[in-house]
């Protein structure tokens, strides 16, 4: 519980609202609260409410059924005999009289059909209106039960945020990345971004980055959910501390402002949108001011990354666009967000004759396979 305003005097609780009002005015004057904050929030709630689908107004259906009722009075007398031709009206009346029996017969059949249609429409209307009008507790209970189940699932997700990460799958993914030309240099570039420790290397996997970090003199340790991989990390980075824990959950339990840096290789591609948000917010909380966050990921602008790296990584669910990751980092409170790119595929570029491919396709072929978000807390 924060306690920065504690005082020993017995407070005048009855006057508290006045005190609070004055404090709000002072903070508004100091610019702590933006002008129009409450009005903007209210307006946003109205916008959210306006987006929801409007329930169907059963009155419209009843109005149309009323129109059916009004037109049901079939009668030969309603058939006009008027005519613009001299003597035409008399002719119409004479013909009508001559065929009156047939006309009545037709009208009776039409009336019978119309009554049957009307009854069917009313039955349909009842069936349609029923879900709106039926307010039996069982129905409410069923809705409530469904909502409760959803709430339970949401709670589980919020509490868990874990990635199903088998050690075999993670080893396989790491093997695909290891040994690529330029890979070691890329890891050294990432490690060079850290200015002070301790640095937590999340989902440290086979220890590829952690070993480079420590070799560069950075005070770094690993966080790896799989026990077998934690051992692999320790083997790659002898002497390094490695926590066996889900990185997102581990971050939530880390003291605020206790880290100098956070790194993760290819980890963001394994997270769903909600967990990605938790990761960035947790990182923002755990890093001290000036702390550095480095998140490496497959580059969605690279065909190699999209067609090879992501599909070959059993844990990856998607390539996260750097613009989206940057926006998430900014929203989580990071300043100085920038992007780094691994080397372009010079060999591929050289192998393609000039002008043989449209420029956008060539760009996708030679684009860096990885990028890294670098953000300062």
């Amino acid at each position, binding site marked *: 519980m924060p306690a920065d305003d504690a*005082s020993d005097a017995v407070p005048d609780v009855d006057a508290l609202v006045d005190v609070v009002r004055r404090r709000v005015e002072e903070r508004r004057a100091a610019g702590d609260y933006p002008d129009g904050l409450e009005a903007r929030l209210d307006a946003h709630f109205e916008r959210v409410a306006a987006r929801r689908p409007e329930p169907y107004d059963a009155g419209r259906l009843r109005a149309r059924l009323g129109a059916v009722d009004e037109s049901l009075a079939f009668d030969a007398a309603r058939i006009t005999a008027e005519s613009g031709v001299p003597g035409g009206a008399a002719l119409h009346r004479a013909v009508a009289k001559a065929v009156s029996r047939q006309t009545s017969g037709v009208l009776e059949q039409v009336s019978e059909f119309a009554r049957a249609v009307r009854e069917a429409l009313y039955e349909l209307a009842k069936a349609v209106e029923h879900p709106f009008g039926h307010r039996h507790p069982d129905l409410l209970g069923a809705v409530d039960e469904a909502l409760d189940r959803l709430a339970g699932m949401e*709670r589980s997700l919020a509490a868990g945020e874990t990635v199903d990460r088998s050690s075999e799958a993670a080893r396989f993914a790491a093997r695909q990345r290891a040994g690529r030309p330029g890979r070691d240099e890329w890891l050294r570039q990432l490690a060079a971004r850290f200015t002070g420790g301790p640095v937590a290397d999340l989902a440290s996997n086979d220890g590829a980055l952690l070993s480079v970090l420590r070799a560069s003199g950075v005070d770094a340790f690993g966080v790896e959910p799989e026990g077998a991989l934690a051992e692999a990390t320790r083997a790659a980075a002898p002497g390094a501390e490695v926590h066996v824990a889900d990185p997102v959950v581990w971050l939530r339990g880390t003291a605020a402002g206790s880290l100098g840096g956070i790194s993760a290789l290819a980890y963001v591609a394994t997270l769903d949108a909600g967990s990605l948000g938790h990761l960035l917010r947790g990182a923002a909380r755990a890093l001290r001011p000036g702390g550095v966050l480095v998140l490496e990921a497959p580059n969605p602008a690279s065909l190699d990354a999209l067609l090879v790296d992501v599909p070959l990584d059993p844990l990856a669910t998607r390539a996260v666009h750097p613009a989206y990751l940057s926006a998430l980092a900014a929203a989580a409170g990071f300043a100085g967000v920038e992007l780094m790119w691994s080397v372009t595929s010079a060999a591929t570029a050289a192998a393609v004759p000039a002008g043989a491919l449209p420029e956008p396709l060539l760009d996708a072929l030679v684009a860096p396979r990885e990028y890294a978000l670098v953000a300062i807390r």
Partner: protein
Amino acid sequence: MTVRHLLVAAAPGDATTASAFETRDAAAAVTGERGEVYARFIDPALADDVLPLEALTSTAPLADDVLVFHASIGDPVVYDVVAARTDRLVVVYHNVSPASAFARWDPTFAPLLAEGRAQIAALASRCTVAITPSEFNAHDLRSWNFRDVRVVPLVIDVARRLGAAGGDPPEGSPASAAGDPLLLFVGQLQPHKRPELLVEMAHILATYSLPDAHLVLAGAHRLPAFVSTVKAFAHDLRAPVTFTGAVDDAEIGRLYRRADVFVTASDHEGFCAPVLEAMAFGVPVVARACGAIREVAGDAAVLIPAGEGPVVFAEAVATVARDHAVRAELVERGRRRAVAFAPDVLRRRLADAMAEVLA
């Protein structure tokens, strides 16, 4: 004399149902006969305690019999039964949620609420005594020309209902939610409870004052269109809010134990039992001064005038959370208030009232 008790719907944990049982026990102490409770809709968990409406309609009352009707919602079938009976009628009025708050979210349900008020008002001429837990409710009854209106607060037995749970919350429990401070609201998420104002308050509090603040909204979701809108709103704001849905009494007890501040922004409350529950658990209360909340909370809560917005609400919560002296004073006042509303005290008041009514 046989005293029968009737309500529209009986369910465990429901305040009206609990009141019906308390009133039945108080009446039994007077007559020496345990009267039955009847309802049209009965939760299966209460099948042994509550008889169906048909069992009431099949009994012809004697001249000195009494029907105690607990009115909290409209229902034409039940009201027709009440209107047709000849036994002396006592109405226990628990208030009806305002239809205007629901019109936008459920145009079918809103008219039922309006009809419910009209149905209760129509009982005025038949009713000999009306009992209600607050002056706020009594005002409704008098405006409908009920003649003899008596205010007897609801019996809230916190220890019996919520006191059993102890120890650490189980995994996944909303009571284990991070939050410093943890703000708690208990009640159904309905439009007149104004949960969207609490979401705004939590957003403002976390953004401008206490970044680790977290709000738990604990209560059943009865109105999907409204709840999904409030959830979408909270999501858009990235407000630190957990929606628990319906939770059992043990979980409510754990939440009260974990909470740092109880908050409610409700526009309309006929009594608001959660305010007293929070006070009994030593949780300071910050509420909007609407409905019966001022009567129930007395001087033991920070009451935000209805015209103030979520910024003042958030600043008040921040003050209560941060200032130990303010917090301690509110907790102490709350405990005194909870003692004044202790179940044995209120049971005696209810028993006295029933003794007068049935004399």
